[in-house]
């Protein structure tokens, strides 16, 4: 008995180094709570500074972990390239979003930072585990943090409604997922979805129950990723939330959920049994439906943020396609994720700049502004070009890599599913041109009615967004600089 306990203790102590970045996050979380309680009176930006510093610390510790492959805490915590790179992307975008929030909501914002750190912690958990229990905890951490973030700055009815919808929809999905997990656990007796016992259990289980369990598990992940048919919350929430929070919602939680899903899909789809086949078909159908619905629904949107919501649904479909093709090397997956994060952050930064200027996120409020703000709209148009996936931008390279990966997918040449995915992926790019280009269309091609000469004063966020635009082009022309990092 005693030796067992010592063993467990030993293991925990040995595993702690793997958990360093998360420990730093937790410390940062606690300090930021205290600083928002006590230090804000002395120095207004103390919590902001604390958050940035802790994110820097986390980033530093993460860089140490690059290249490591290890498991800890009884195999439930995984540190491998997949998790390290994902967490680095998450921390970097969290850094930008922190600055974003600080500039837009300068007063009474102390708790937001700590909630943001909690959300980051949740996505860290999601991206470095193969244990269902931890995964569920991760999803809930992110979800609860997100509910708070969406509602935190709500000033009017629409924003409050968005937060409420989000929370209700999220809790139901989480409950369904938990039920699915209980079925999976009941069938397999193991919580680690990569373990042999787990796969064995799924192989032996009756088909009906397996289908049901998989479907339920999909509900939870689908909610976080926002794929069809669990996407219905995104447009309302994206539109209702403050732009800085929308930027958060469209990037950080998605990366975490995506990595979890990639792990799950990879370990489950590799067998010859019923559940693998089922999973593959779920995946193909969901990817196609998500790409089509996301892009087609975006055609009719009048609001830039709502359009971006559907656009991110469309990109999720594309990412599912990338996961479908994911075998050993995750480099292309990370390239697309980085491209996606970069493009989305840039797009929301621009939307926010314009919101400050015109007080509206409606696309037709951009009419004729291209002439008044040529640089901003040129950059915004480049971001749109990248979102469509046209050269010479990072979006194009990302698409090319996903297409390549899918094409090279083992023995895929005569695989109807692959052909279908490729065709739909290509077709939706064409569709997406139509709505993304409404932004330059209004900005440059339409005449404006407002004659205000008011210009956007140069500010940090504007420079950040320009820097992102330059990166989009740079990595589009020289993708080696980015992808070599992931190898």
């Amino acid at each position, binding site marked *: 008995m005693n030796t067992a306990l010592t063993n467990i203790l030993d293991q925990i102590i040995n595993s702690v180094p793997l958990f360093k970045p998360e420990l730093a996050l937790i410390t940062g979380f606690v300090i930021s709570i205290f600083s928002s309680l006590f230090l804000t009176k002395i120095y207004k930006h103390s919590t902001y500074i604390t958050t940035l510093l802790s994110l820097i610390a986390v980033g530093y510790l993460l860089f140490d972990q690059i290249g490591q492959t290890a498991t800890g805490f009884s195999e439930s915590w995984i540190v491998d390239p997949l998790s390290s790179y994902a967490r680095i992307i998450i921390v970097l975008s969290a850094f930008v979003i922190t600055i974003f929030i600080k500039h837009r909501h300068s007063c009474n914002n102390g708790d937001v930072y700590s909630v943001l750190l909690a959300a980051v912690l949740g996505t860290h958990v999601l991206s470095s585990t193969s244990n269902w229990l931890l995964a569920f905890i991760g999803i809930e951490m992110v979800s609860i943090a997100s509910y708070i973030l969406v509602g935190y700055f709500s000033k009017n009815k629409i924003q409050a409604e968005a937060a409420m919808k989000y929370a209700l929809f999220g809790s139901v999905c989480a409950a369904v997922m938990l039920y699915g997990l209980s079925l999976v656990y009941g069938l397999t007796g193991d919580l680690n979805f990569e373990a042999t016992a787990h796969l064995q259990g799924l192989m032996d289980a009756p088909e009906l129950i397996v289908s049901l369990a998989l479907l339920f598990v999909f509900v939870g992940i689908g909610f976080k990723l926002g794929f069809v048919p669990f996407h219905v919350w995104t447009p309302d929430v994206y539109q209702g939330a403050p732009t800085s929070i929308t930027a958060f919602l469209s990037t950080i939680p998605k990366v975490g959920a995506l990595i979890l899903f990639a792990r799950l899909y990879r370990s489950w789809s590799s067998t010859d049994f019923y559940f693998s086949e089922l999973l593959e078909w779920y995946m193909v159908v969901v990817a196609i439906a998500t790409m089509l619905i996301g892009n087609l629904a975006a055609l009719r949107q009048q609001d830039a943020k709502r359009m971006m919501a559907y656009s991110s649904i469309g990109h999720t479909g594309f990412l599912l396609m990338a996961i479908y093709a994911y075998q050993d090397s995750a480099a292309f997956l990370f390239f697309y994720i980085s491209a996606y994060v970069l493009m989305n952050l840039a797009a929301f930064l621009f939307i926010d700049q314009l919101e400050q200027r015109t007080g509206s996120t409606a696309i037709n409020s951009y009419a004729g502004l291209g002439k008044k703000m040529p640089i901003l709209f040129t950059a915004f148009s480049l971001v749109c070009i990248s979102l469509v996936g046209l050269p010479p931008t990072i979006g194009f390279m990302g698409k090319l890599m996903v297409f390549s990966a899918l094409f090279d997918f083992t023995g895929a040449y005569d695989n109807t599913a692959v052909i279908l995915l490729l065709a739909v992926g290509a077709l939706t790019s*064409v569709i997406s041109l139509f709505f993304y280009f409404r932004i330059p269309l209004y900005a440059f091609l339409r005449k404006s009615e407002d004659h205000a000469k008011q210009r956007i004063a140069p500010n940090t966020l504007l420079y950040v967004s320009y820097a992102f635009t330059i990166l989009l082009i740079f990595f589009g022309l020289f993708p080696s600089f980015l992808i070599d990092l992931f190898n």
Partner: protein
Amino acid sequence: MGLLSILIFLPLIALALILALPNTAKSSYKYIALGFTVLQLGIALYIYQNFQGAQAGVNILSDFQFLEQASWIRLDLGAIGKLEIDYLIGLDGISLPLIVLSALVMLMGVGASWNIDKSPKGYFALLMLLNTAVMGIFCALDFFLFYVFYEVMLFPLYFLIGIWGGVRREYAAIKFFLYTLLGSVFMLLVIVGLYFSVTNPETGAHTFNMLHMMNPSNYVDGSFFSFIANYHEVLGIPARLIGFIILFFAFAIKVPIVPLHTWLPDAHVEAPTPVSIILAGILLKIGGYGIIRVCYSIFPDMAALTNWWLALIGIISILYGALNALAQKDLKRMIAYSSVSHMGFVLLGIASLTAEGISGAMFQMISHGFLSAALFFLVGVIYDRVHDRYIYNFRGLAGIMPKYTACVAIVFFASLGLPGFSAFIGEAFVIIGTFNAQSMTTGIPRWMAIAGSAGIFLSAAYFLWTLQRMFFGQTRLQGGTAWASALTDLNRRELLILVPTISLALILGIVPSLVFGKLNASILKLIDIINPYI
């Protein structure tokens, strides 16, 4: 940095200059654009002078001239292998005439833009970006590079039509963009497929190099597009045929063929004159060039298999375009449809798979390049003056604009294929090639040649009828005396653009060897590649 790179990226320097200069230096933008395009034409002519017509090129890298090769993107994608993308540009007999044509038409375009006063900064900057993209397309020998230039070409055009266009400009701009993108996105899938089917014999890595794609022995056995023993099928259609059709579809939209031509009248009518000139003069040629360089060279087996259908499409485009032109009341629309008809000859000539036919198609592209540019420029002349181009609103223009009428008459006659002008050579060679095709057993029946000749007859009908309606008879104008005083004759700038173009049509009509001498070897080489599969 070789001469070709300078040719391609020179406009980017102009673009940077234009963007850097403040708005107060507004009037200098056009001079910058003009200076750089003149320089470009100079370089293009120098290249033309030093080009060795005996070297064939097409599928042999060392035969390409002004070759530049640098490794651009090397990506290690783990399981997917290494991504090998080169900055590879060079010229052979097929691309050289088009490069010279592009430089010339660009210069005409800048000349036609002299009176643009709506945000000239953006206008000339976009024009220069378009210039770079177009030059890049004709020079690129790496499929990836080709694709990048091909897509980059779309953005400036979208904005040029969309911002400086006519009443329905938004519709025309997005329609043009969507049509082209639809073709090119699927082209991307084929490019990826080809990439995985072809290896570079030197490094063993997959490659985007077009010349490697032309060599059957570089294909991986059992790969999707492999040459020999390829059993891959998509929906029951052989993989290589699918690849060919998709690529053809992408370029056919650009040519354009009937029934994929509907973007063209809209784009032309709504586009400002200089953009129409560039559209008709250069961009349609990208379609024909793509079919020769990509479809036919990479898929010679499928070219031999499908040429009957391609020729049929060519015939339909010739006749349908001509009949439509006959029915138009808008002068610019009529010329747009005449482009559809004339580009049909290009497709017919290419599909004939005879040396005469393909040479004729190339010649027709060059000839149509500057003749259609001249036609659109001439439409621009009256549109600039009275902002109307309805055929029935003008009558007896010869009385008040004699020089203009003379130019129009010459260009009309040149376009309808009067012997002595360049279009005659192009069309005659296409018809001869098509006629000979039956004896060469390339699968094109003689009646197609006859149908093509009917197209020439129809083009005479619509051009002459238009001439008669607008220029002859008593002067009667819709706008009355206001128009009569506005319709001044050609000024010096306009003559400066038109006279050289007309002389060029005449020179090439009399000395066609200026073009044939450079492209003959390449055409024969291309025929050699396709011949084994007939």
